[in-house]
C-alpha cells in the first residue's frame, strides 16, 4: 500500500480490524440466530481460505479438510472440558475464558498441523491423485478413531464444552487466516507455491524444494482447519463425528472451486454464499408456507445440487468465479489498482 511507512505496514491491518470485530460482536449480542449464522460463516471462511492455500495456490488436491477440522475440534474440546473449573483469578471471567479459549484453539491447531505433516509428507511425494485418496482416507480414519474412543465421546459426541467462542474470537481468526493467505500469496514463498502449481518439474529445476513447500503449505492449511474446528466446538452445544464427515470436506472443496482455485477473495465470497444460500432457501420455503418437510429437504437437496454444481462448473467455467484473481484485480479501472503480478 503506498503512502504507509514501511514499518507500520505489517501491523496496520491488525490495528484496523480489531476494533471492527469487537464492535460487531457487541452489536449482534442480542440476536443469537444472527450470531450463530455469522459464526458458522466465519468457520466456513477459515476452512475455505485455508484449503485454498493447498488446492488453489499450490495446485494440489486435498479432499479431507474436515478430518483436520475434527482433530482441532476434539483436541480443543477435550482440553476445554478438563480446564472447565479453572479460571485465572486475577482477570475478569470473560477475559480469562478468552485466554483459555485461545490456548486450547492454538493447541488444537497445532495438533491438526502435526496430523497434516504426518499425512502430507508421504503423500506429497507422489502424484497428485494420490493425495486426494489419502486425505479422503485420513478423514475416515479420524472418524473411525473417534467413534471407538471413549475420551472423545464415541458416536454420541462431546457435550458441555464451554461456549466461549463469540463473534470476536471467530472474527479474529477469520482475519488472521485471510491475512496469512494474502501475505503468503504476495511473498516469494507464495510465488514458489504458484510455480509448483504451474509446473512442478520446472519449479524443482529452478531450485524450489517442491516437496518441502507442498508439505509446509499443507501444514499451514491443516493448522487453520484445526482452528476452525476448535472454534466450532466452542459455539455449538455438542460435537460428534457426524459434523466432520466427507460431506463437510466436499462442501469446502465446492467453495474453493466455485470461488476460483487460487483466489482468496473467491474462497471468501463462495463460503459466504454457500453458508447463506441454504438458510435463505429454508426461510423462503418456510415463508411460502410450504410443508415443513420441504424446508428440511433443503439440507438433503443441498448435497446432490453441490455435486451437479461441481460438474457444471467444470464443464462451463472451470476457473470458478474469480479464477486466480483477487477482488481488486476485477474491479473497474477507476479504483486505484495495484501493479499486475503477485507482488
Amino acid at each position, binding site marked *: 500500500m503506498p503512502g504507509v511507512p514501511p514499518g507500520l505496514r505489517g501491523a496496520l491491518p491488525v490495528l484496523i480490524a480489531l476494533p471492527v470485530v469487537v464492535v460487531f460482536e457487541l452489536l449482534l449480542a442480542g440476536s443469537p440466530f444472527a450470531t450463530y449464522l455469522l459464526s458458522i460463516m466465519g468457520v466456513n471462511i477459515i476452512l475455505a481460505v485455508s484449503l485454498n492455500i493447498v488446492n488453489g495456490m499450490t495446485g494440489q488436491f486435498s479432499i479431507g479438510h474436515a478430518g483436520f477440522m475434527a482433530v482441532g475440534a476434539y483436541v480443543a474440546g477435550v482440553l476445554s472440558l478438563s480446564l472447565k473449573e479453572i479460571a485465572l483469578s486475577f482477570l475478569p471471567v470473560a477475559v480469562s475464558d478468552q485466554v483459555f479459549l485461545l490456548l486450547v484453539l492454538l493447541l488444537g491447531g497445532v495438533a491438526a498441523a502435526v496430523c497434516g505433516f504426518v499425512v502430507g509428507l508421504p503423500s506429497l511425494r507422489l502424484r497428485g491423485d494420490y493425495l486426494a485418496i489419502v486425505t479422503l482416507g485420513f478423514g475416515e480414519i479420524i472418524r473411525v478413531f473417534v467413534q*471407538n474412543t471413549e475420551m472423545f465421546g464415541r458416536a454420541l459426541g462431546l457435550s458441555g464444552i464451554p461456549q466461549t467462542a463469540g463473534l470476536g474470537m471467530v472474527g479474529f481468526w477469520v482475519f488472521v487466516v485471510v491475512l496469512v493467505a494474502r501475505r503468503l500469496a504476495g511473498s516469494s514463498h507464495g510465488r514458489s507455491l504458484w510455480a509448483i502449481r504451474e509446473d512442478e518439474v520446472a519449479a524443482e529445476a529452478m531450485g524450489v524444494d517442491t516437496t518441502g513447500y507442498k508439505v509446509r503449505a499443507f501444514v499451514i492449511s491443516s493448522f487453520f482447519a484445526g482452528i476452525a474446528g476448535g472454534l466450532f466446538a466452542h459455539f455449538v452445544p455438542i460435537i460428534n463425528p457426524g459434523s466432520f464427515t466427507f460431506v463437510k470436506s466436499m462442501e469446502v472443496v465446492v467453495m474453493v472451486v466455485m470461488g476460483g482455485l487460487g483466489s482468496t477473495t473467491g474462497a471468501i465470497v463462495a463460503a459466504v454464499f454457500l453458508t447463506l444460500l441454504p438458510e435463505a432457501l429454508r426461510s423462503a420455503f418456510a415463508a411460502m408456507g410450504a410443508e415443513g418437510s420441504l424446508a428440511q429437504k433443503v439440507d438433503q437437496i443441498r448435497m446432490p445440487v453441490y455435486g451437479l454444481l*461441481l460438474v457444471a462448473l467444470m464443464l462451463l467455467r472451470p476457473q470458478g468465479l474469480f479464477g486466480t484473481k483477487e477482488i481488486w484485480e476485477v474491479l473497474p479501472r477507476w479504483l486505484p489498482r495495484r501493479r499486475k503480478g503477485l507482488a
Partner: protein
Amino acid sequence: MAQLLQHLINGLASGTIYALVALGYTMVYGVLKLINFAHGDVMMVGVYMGYATAFALGKQAQKSLWGVVLIFLVAMGGCALLGFLIERFAYRPLREKPRLTALITAIGISFALSYGFQLDIGFLPGAAPRAFPEIIVPTEWLIIGDRDVVVWNWQVMSLLIAVGLMVGLQYLVFKTRFGRAMRAVSYDHRVAALMGIPTDRVIAVTFMIGSALAAGAGLLYAIKDTSVSPLMGLYVGLKAFVAAVIGGIGHVPGAVVGALMLGLVEEFVVGYAASTWRDAVAFGILIIVLIAKPGGLFGRVAAEKV
C-alpha cells in the same frame, strides 16, 4: 483352525466382489488416467435397478433361474448405459483439460448420485437401507464338523460368477483385437488415434464393461449383505479403489490380487480384532502401501517425460 478356514472363505468371497469393482477402476484409469470416483455410485444405481426388477418380477419369479439372470442382465445393462452416458457427457469434453478438472467432475457425479439417491422424491429411493429380496435362497452346501465351517451356496456362486467374469475380461484384454486396442489406448491415446484406433469408442466400451462388472459385483454384495442403501456405493467403491491401488492402478491382474488381499485382511481384522475398525483397515493398508511402494505391488510409477 476351523475358524481360520471360515474366515479364509469369507475373505475370499468378499475379495472377489471387491475385485470385480476394482477391475472397473483399474481399466478406466488405464485408458483415461482418471480415477473415476463415481464408479462405486454407478454400481449402487445398478443394484437399485436390480432391486426394482426383482420387485417387479414378484416373489416367485425372482427366485427362478431366468429371473435371476434377468435381474443381473438388467442391472449390468443399465449400468453399462449409465457409464456410457457419464463418459460421453461429463468426461469426454474434459479429456484434453488438466486431470484435476476431470477429477473434480468425477467427485461431483459421485456426490450427485449417492446423495441424490438418498432423497425420497419421485423414483429416488431414499436414505433408509432396504432389504434386498432373496433371489438366491441361502442353502448350506458344505458343512465341516459341527457347523465349524459353513460354505453357503451363494458364496460359491458368487465366487464362480466373479471368477468367470474375470477370466472373460482377461481373455478380452489379452486375446482379442479389441483388447489390444484397449491396451494401445492405455499406453498413449493420441498415438493410438493416429494408428487408426477408434479411441472414443474404445474408451466408451471400456467404461461400459467396467460399469457392468461393477453392477454384477454390487448385486453379489447385496445378496451377501441382504441390504441396499444409497451410500453402499461410496464404501464398497472406496475399498475397491484401495484394492486397485494396492495392486498397482492400471494393472488388471494386480487389481484382483489387491482385492483378494483386502478382502482377507478385512475379514481377519473383523474376526480376530474389533469389527468397528473394519472401515479403517482399508485406508490403513492404503497409506502403508503408498508409503512403502507407491506404484502398488505390480505397477510402476511412470517416469514423467521431461
